[in-house]
């Protein structure tokens, strides 16, 4: 083995790789904004909670889609698994403590992810897409059939969720607790995902996304990595579903539907996938637009959304963040040289 050449650490590539995971000043902005929202818009905390949960769900999708490159149309299966775990345990009076409920939601969703991932991830392309779709449709149908336990089409409402730490009540009319609780859960999960994607494991996922054949050739356990990534992502989606059920005190079949799966995909792509903060940008852009527009002009909203998707697919494949990064780079070239951004590692 030849030793690395002297002074390799000074090489710009090595420096960029070593500094990649460091926290940057702007990374505090979304969290500061989220806290500010709590004080500025006390009347819109219900919407804020929905926004935070959606962001968390989009982050879980980013892990499989943006980092591992698995195209799935069935991610709501895990969101729904988490939501129904919390909902059924609370409704049947078995368990209603929120934090441990989330852990149970994560465990159940992870089990669904592991089980389906083990079989689904043998395939790729259209077959994989179809299998993710069918798995989700199957869960939805199962939830519909088992209406003695799941409430069927009507779902379960007025879930008796216990107060957080025995003190802070989940009041559906004044969702202060829900908002801060969702924010805290989002933060913990985000830190976990951020650590994960900058770890060697995250790096190997990117390798699989870029060139699966080469990853096989260098001896990486490709399928094991993909299944693990799918399971972790499912667990986080399950947490998102669990928080959603606790915050709204109900679950219904919509948590498992194609609508939710397609929406989260759109949100992630709108923000920019494979770049952590894309989920935040996409969720805010989509939710605010849909909140304002869909009530006034629901049909025009759908038309605009479709147009937006077509434009993104044709011209702006990296979403809003991609456009912003390209702009920053263009300005940077004119000014003081290229900025080291995460975009530079994407093709």
């Amino acid at each position, binding site marked *: 083995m030849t030793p690395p050449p002297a002074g390799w650490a000074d090489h710009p590539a090595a420096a960029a790789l070593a500094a990649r995971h460091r926290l940057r000043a702007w990374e505090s902005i979304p969290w500061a904004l989220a806290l500010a929202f709590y004080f500025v818009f006390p009347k819109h905390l219900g919407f804020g909670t929905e926004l935070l949960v959606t962001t968390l769900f989009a982050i879980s999708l980013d892990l499989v889609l943006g980092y591992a490159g698995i195209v799935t149309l069935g991610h709501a299966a895990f969101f729904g698994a988490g939501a129904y775990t919390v909902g059924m345990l609370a409704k049947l009076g078995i368990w209603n403590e929120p934090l441990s409920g989330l852990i149970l939601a994560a465990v159940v969703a992870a089990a669904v992810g592991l089980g389906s991932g083990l*079989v689904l991830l043998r395939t790729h392309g259209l077959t994989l897409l179809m299998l993710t779709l069918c798995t989700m449709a199957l869960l939805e149908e199962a939830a519909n059939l088992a209406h003695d336990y799941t409430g069927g089409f009507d779902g379960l409402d007025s879930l008796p969720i216990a107060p957080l730490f025995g003190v802070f009540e989940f009041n559906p009319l004044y969702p202060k607790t829900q908002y801060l609780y969702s924010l805290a859960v989002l933060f913990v999960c985000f830190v976990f995902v951020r650590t994960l994607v900058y770890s060697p494991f995250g790096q190997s996922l990117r390798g699989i996304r870029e060139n699966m054949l080469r990853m096989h050739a260098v001896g990486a356990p490709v399928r094991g990595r993909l299944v693990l990534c799918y399971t972790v992502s499912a667990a986080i989606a399950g947490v998102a579903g669990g928080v959603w059920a606790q915050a709204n005190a109900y679950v219904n079949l919509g948590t498992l539907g194609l609508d939710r799966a397609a929406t989260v995909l759109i949100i992630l792509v709108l923000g920019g996938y494979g770049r952590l903060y894309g989920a935040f940008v996409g969720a805010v852009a989509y939710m605010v637009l849909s909140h304002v527009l869909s009530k006034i002009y629901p049909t025009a909203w759908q038309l605009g959304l479709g147009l937006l998707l077509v434009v993104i697919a044709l011209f702006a494949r990296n979403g809003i963040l991609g456009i912003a990064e390209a702009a920053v780079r263009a300005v940077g070239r004119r000014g003081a040289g290229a900025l080291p951004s995460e975009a530079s590692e994407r093709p």
Partner: protein
Amino acid sequence: MIFGVDVASMLLGGVAAGMVLFIVSVGLSVTMGLMGFVNLAHGGFAMLGGYAIALAMKQWGFGFGTALVFGFVVTAAASAALERLLYARLYRATDLDQVLFTIGLVFMMIASVTLLVGPENQPLALPAMLRGQINLGFMRYRTYSVVLIVIGIVIVSGLWLGVERTRFGAQIRAAVDNRRMAESLGINIARLFTITFALGSGMAALGGGLGAEFLGLDPQYALKYLVYFLIVVAVGGLGRVSGVFYAALLIGVLDFVLKKYVPQGGSAFIYVLTILLLLWRPQGLFGARAT
């Protein structure tokens, strides 16, 4: 004897539904097999065609047959324009971009139809001679189902002859089997694909019109039955006309029988079956090539 009649009536109903499934799905299978394009907007073309047919009959007093031809031509022309202008840019793009583009297209189709025509279900009045029942010798059955089966047989024979016996069909088969080889032999793939795409969308339009009687016709049609169309294609194998035909009949009969005996949970059974089948044969039941 009664039992035999029951079985026959169920089979006929299922086969009629299967014929509609086939007419809609065959274009999807060929475009996916030919270009590897994940076209989730295919159900949208069926919906648009169904609307063209229903409106032509209601607004302009077209006969059922003329309206079907009209719907076929309009949808084929519109899809050919879309293919040249937009789809063609994405043939080399990733699955994800194709999925997003076609989902966006479906949303735009649904919203446009809702804005222009309205969100309600469009009733499609069949001509009097197609309503009522027909005597099949051993039993009486709904005329329209029998007509659907006959139309389906005519179409599948026509397609089979077209694909197996004509020069154009040979080019399609060559391109499905090995696109690069076909291209280097001088086959004009771009033109081939535009024509196939237009024909496939036109067929979907026919299916939308023919099936409106029992599938209904509203803007959500484009997404509601998409999973079924995709299942037929995935089970039948990409780019195989005969495979899609058998798969459509299988799913049609299965769905019909299950809806009758297990009104709840019938579709769950089809999903399970599809999952198991795709795990066993990822290229589909009748597909020859790995996808």
